[in-house]
């Protein structure tokens, strides 16, 4: 059979020796299967396997090591000055962030393509934004942001920080054992908390569609916190494999797949993340295309795709309409354990993007009957 050598096709091989997060030894000790991902050796799954890890996260609480992601601070004299500088780089309403509030946005190229997606938080420290970018893009992003910041505002890498995600319906109860105030934390908000003596910046956010938290701590503290959280019987470790199936069911984009330098936030269905004021005022890199598309529409759109039957359709699969005309491609696709069937997303011609539209996916040279559906596949359970 084929494909055994590399069972994880999105992993990126490079000549450089893979880097390790501070939890590398902990993953090995747990029996994780490690694969190269974005320049790091990362756990794709633990012995329980992807299906079990996925289902555990939906039913209880999954613990993810996401320390490979890029954390940084953008510092300036005061919040307004820093927010205005950041608004040059992203279409989100940064200025409108309340203290401790967080927003999802995208770094845009001059032509309106997406350079990366990211989270921006107004930190408790006046004049400081806390920013998290994708692992594979962090060198690019840090250089890009630095280059576009005005004098007096600087990006400070936070390479000494690790990042955990605790996701699932029991995540709140687990964290509340250490810091009861997490119960008061709202979705897309963050707080500085002490978890069993460990200083942590905790945000109520994630990449699974479940309620949950992302927890930023000093590298030196992360092994202790990881073990502390895993000691709770409600918590099990979850690898990148289930992280991918969870976010796909939640309809969330994976950079380099569902969004990239060729796609715009409007085509990608991310208009909700563009601030209302920004739509009228503009003032961000890439605004020409984004504002034009907001006004005149787009020729293709990101949609959910639900194939009939059991066969998954993978990234790159061609999408044709019922007349046999090519109308797009699958950008993420696989098996959704919660849906208990195949799920995918991709771009289709705008005329075929209405939910309910019947299309065909070409899987192994045969048409696979598929319906365009609205995302997500699994309703989110965020605590707003």
């Amino acid at each position, binding site marked *: *059979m*084929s494909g*055994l050598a590399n*069972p994880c096709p999105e992993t990126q091989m490079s000549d450089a020796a893979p880097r390790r997060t501070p939890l590398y030894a902990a993953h090995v000790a747990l029996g994780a299967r490690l694969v190269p991902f974005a320049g790091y050796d990362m756990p*794709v799954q633990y012995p329980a396997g*992807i299906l*079990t890890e996925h289902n555990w996260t939906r039913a209880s609480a999954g613990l993810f090591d996401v320390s490979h992601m890029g954390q940084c601070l953008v510092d300036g004299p005061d919040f307004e000055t820093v927010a205005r500088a950041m608004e040059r780089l992203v279409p989100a309403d940064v200025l409108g962030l309340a203290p401790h509030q967080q927003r999802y946005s995208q770094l845009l190229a001059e032509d309106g393509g997406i350079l990366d997606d990211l989270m921006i938080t107004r930190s408790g420290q006046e004049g400081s934004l806390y920013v998290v970018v994708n692992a594979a893009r962090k060198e690019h992003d840090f250089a890009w942001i630095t280059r576009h910041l005005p004098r007096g505002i600087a990006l400070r890498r936070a390479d000494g920080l690790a990042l955990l995600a605790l996701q699932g319906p029991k995540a709140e109860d687990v964290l509340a054992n250490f810091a009861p105030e997490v119960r008061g934390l709202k979705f897309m908000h963050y707080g500085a908390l002490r978890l069993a003596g460990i200083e942590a910046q905790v945000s109520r956010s994630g990449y699974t569609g479940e309620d949950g938290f992302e927890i930023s701590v000093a590298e030196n503290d992360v092994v202790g916190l990881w073990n502390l959280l895993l000691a709770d019987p409600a918590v099990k470790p979850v690898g990148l*494999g289930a992280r991918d199936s969870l976010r796909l069911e939640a309809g969330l984009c994976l950079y380099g797949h569902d969004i990239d330098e060729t796609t715009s936030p409007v085509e990608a269905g991310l208009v909700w993340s563009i601030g209302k004021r920004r739509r009228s005022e503009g003032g961000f890199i890439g605004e020409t295309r984004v504002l034009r598309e907001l006004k005149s529409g787009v020729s293709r759109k990101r949609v959910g795709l639900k194939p009939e039957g*059991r066969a998954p359709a993978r990234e790159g699969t061609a999408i044709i309409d019922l007349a046999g005309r090519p109308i797009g491609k699958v950008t993420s696709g696989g098996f959704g354990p919660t849906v208990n069937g*195949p799920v995918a997303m991709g771009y289709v011609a705008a005329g075929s993007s209405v939910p309910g539209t019947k299309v065909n996916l070409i899987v192994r040279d045969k048409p696979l009957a598929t319906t365009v559906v609205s995302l997500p596949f699994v309703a989110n359970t965020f605590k707003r």
Partner: protein
Amino acid sequence: MTVKYSKDHEWVKVDGDTATIGITEHAQEQLGDVVFVELPAVGKKVKKGGDAAVVESVKAASEVYAPVSGEVIAVNKELEGDPGLVNRGAEGDGWFMKVKLADRNELVELMDKAAYDKFVAG
């Protein structure tokens, strides 16, 4: 009854001129959770080394090659509703297909269990 193994991680159990084919325990372990198996139509002629079936894990699709040539005389219908059977019993209840052997000489080129285990250990 002899069991032989291919370098592509398929096994063949031969009983008279009927060969039962599946993927090895090592292969299922490497794949992880199997979520879909596409089996050939009964009556299809498969060729040694050619595509015979597809097995999909959560992460990826893999082709299963025919370790021997012959006509497919049966497929494991259980795998349609319960693809996880491949994980639970790769070299037993998780078999893929039965083939009427076209050429017994092809078996000579396959490995026995000891040779396959050594091959996997690398």
